[in-house]
């Protein structure tokens, strides 16, 4: 991981922001729980669902050990989990929860309400699909929420989960937008990795709890929230949301740069690896598949990698900027770990929209659905497809 290499290097060169960390071995879920604590969230709601459960277990355990000053309420459903967050956030608390699969789908209605009441809520989703029953890595649950109005980040490592949650509160509170931080079931949630855990003070300095608006429940100043909006005004709310969404890509990069100054690790909306005029094929990936692809393309000089970290709003400028560096005949292959019941996966759909004014050769690969391992060999199989052949399908299923 490039982030880990950077911090290792800086730790060796002496004091600086990057040295103010403790190295721990953590699972992705533990990193998520720890991030919530470091962000000093004060209200958490919980409902168990595999494979998210250890996040809320860990939060409850930290509260019980008095390491964490927060109220955690065990709700009766994910619908209620998000509805209670909505209530607490309206009153002005910094709130957090985690869910997965069916739970996120069940909360769908509330996700819309949260986004369009402009509440800066951060929630983790450990991605898994729906039916047939399956609890393993898949992005179909969160991809199904892409039109709810939430910002979505997809994380590659446990370190990135921790770091992204910290950045998410900053983005959420400065934009009044909710943020969903997505990690892969088991490949991230239950896999132990080295994680650099920052000092509390560093996080406090980076993202103090700051709401951009004073528009919240104040019993001394009665107001009404969320009432009926008639057709003459409704679209003005959408428009305001849209204007903010249009700023998120740039803000993600800005917050990522600021994060680097504090923590020594850089993040952006996307990450381009080995993309230039020599590149013959670009793999476009999200989440932990990216790590596997990194290793494989290291042996392929003509292959680049475009990691999508910010998925919603889709970072069109960053993607265009990266792909514009390649020659016209470069093949772009989206690796989709989500089945959208459409011809192509979500990543390919977004790429098509983004590159619609070009004559880019775009291909899509369905891989890793329902947790099927995307091994280095899988990546090699994807690269072995002859994309220049007229017989090659635009959409390929890879096992």
């Amino acid at each position, binding site marked *: 991981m490039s982030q880990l290499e950077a911090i290792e290097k800086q730790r060796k060169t002496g004091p600086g922001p990057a040295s103010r960390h403790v190295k721990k071995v953590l699972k992705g879920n533990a990193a998520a729980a720890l991030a919530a604590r470091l962000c000093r969230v*004060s*209200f958490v*709601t919980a409902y168990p669902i595999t494979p998210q459960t250890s996040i809320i277990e860990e939060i409850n355990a930290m509260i019980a050990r008095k390491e964490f000053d927060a*109220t955690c*309420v*065990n*709700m*009766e*459903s994910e*619908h*209620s*989990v998000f*509805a*209670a*967050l*909505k*209530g*607490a*956030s*309206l*009153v*002005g*608390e910094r*709130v957090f929860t985690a869910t997965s699969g069916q739970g996120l789908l069940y909360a769908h*209605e*509330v996700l819309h*309400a949260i986004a369009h009441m402009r509440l800066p809520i951060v929630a983790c989703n450990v991605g898994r699909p729906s039916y047939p029953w399956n609890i393993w890595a898949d992005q179909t649950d969160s991809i199904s929420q892409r039109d709810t109005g939430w910002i979505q980040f997809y994380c590659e490592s446990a370190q990135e989960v921790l770091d992204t949650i910290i950045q998410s509160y900053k983005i959420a509170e400065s934009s009044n937008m909710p943020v969903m931080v997505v990690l892969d079931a088991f490949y991230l949630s239950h896999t132990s990795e080295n994680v650099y855990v920052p000092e509390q003070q560093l996080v406090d300095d980076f993202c103090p709890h700051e709401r951009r608006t004073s528009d919240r*429940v*104040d*019993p*001394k100043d*009665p*107001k*009404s*929230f*969320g*009432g*009926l*909006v*008639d057709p003459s*005004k409704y679209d003005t709310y959408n428009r305001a949301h849209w204007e903010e969404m249009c700023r998120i890509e740039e803000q993600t990069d800005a917050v990522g740069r600021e994060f680097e100054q504090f923590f020594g690790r850089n993040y952006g909306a996307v990450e381009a690896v080995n993309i230039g005029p020599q590149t013959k094929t670009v793999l476009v990936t999200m989440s932990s598949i990216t790590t596997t692809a990194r290793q494989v393309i290291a042996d392929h000089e003509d292959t680049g990698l475009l990691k999508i970290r910010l998925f919603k709003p889709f970072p069109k400028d960053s993607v265009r900027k990266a792909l514009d560096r390649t020659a016209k005949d470069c093949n772009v292959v989206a690796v989709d770990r989500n089945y959208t019941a459409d011809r192509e996966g979500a990543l390919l759909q977004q790429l098509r929209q983004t590159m619609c004014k070009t004559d880019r050769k775009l291909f899509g690969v369905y891989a890793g659905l329902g947790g099927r391992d995307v091994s280095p060999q899988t990546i090699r199989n994807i690269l072995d497809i002859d994309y220049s052949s007229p017989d090659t399908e635009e959409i390929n299923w890879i096992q």
Partner: protein
Amino acid sequence: MKPDTDFIITGEQVSKGALSCRGCGWSLLARYVSNVMGPETVYVVPACCFSIIAGPSPMNLMNGTVVHTLFAAAAATATGVRHALDRQGKQETNVVVLAGDGGTFDIGLQALSGAASREENILFICNNNGAYMNTGVQSSAGTPSGVRTTTDPSGKATPAKNVMEIIEAHNIPYFATASPAFLRDLQRKLEKAKEARGFRFLMVDGPCPPGHKHEPAISIELARIAVETRFFPLFESANGGIEINYFPQKNLPVDDYLKRQGRFAHLYSDGSESRAPASGQDSGAHANGNQTRETSGKNQEMLNAIQMQVDQQWEKLMGKQTVSKV
């Protein structure tokens, strides 16, 4: 205790111009509730008639905070509001859910049960008008047997869910039924509910002229008859046990309540056409089963069933009584 009208609004907390129908129980209830609760109250309102009555954005009928929320999520949203206020040291702020019967008996029951079992410090008030009135009179689990709604055009075959027994099973510190026709009783219960800590529940009979199909002028009169016929008994429970608060003196048949409302009118016709009885009709006692109009056998069966349900409900309540005030 006698029927009374002397609920004194000491500090009006509701603006003029509520968007309710004439004769609506909700708008009256809002005045009584807010008078007792005072301005430092957060009202959490799921989809129901009151979402409209409270005013469209950014209007606010109440001198108090109104948080509109999703149909299924009233008690859950209130949970979040409550804990956040507590963390900010605002334990004295009241958190009050104002929900209809759909948001209580049906889609809201899961969240209601969750909040009650967690002993959340909130007051849940259900204005029970016995159907989905806001969407145009569709059956809910709170719709009584026999009622004709747009989704039960032949009349509802099954009785209303006994939500009070579900609430009772949660062992909460205070729950009660109340009626806008018994104002002193309503006031006392609101004060008691406000004072108690933990999860509190009030079920208030909600007259609804367009849904129940009667003249707005007789809303309160009908609410009184509902209590007098034991169709809507008044009782409460503070820390275990049930206390019946009003014992009707006359043994009035439930017909006296039913036949004055268009929602039951089909039970009193020969079945060919429904007809809302005129308002102000004499509500004098009728012998059970001896109707003044033609009633088909099937309808008579339903009327008997309703009377039996009312009798059984009363018997059950009497059996649960721990304090007698006869």
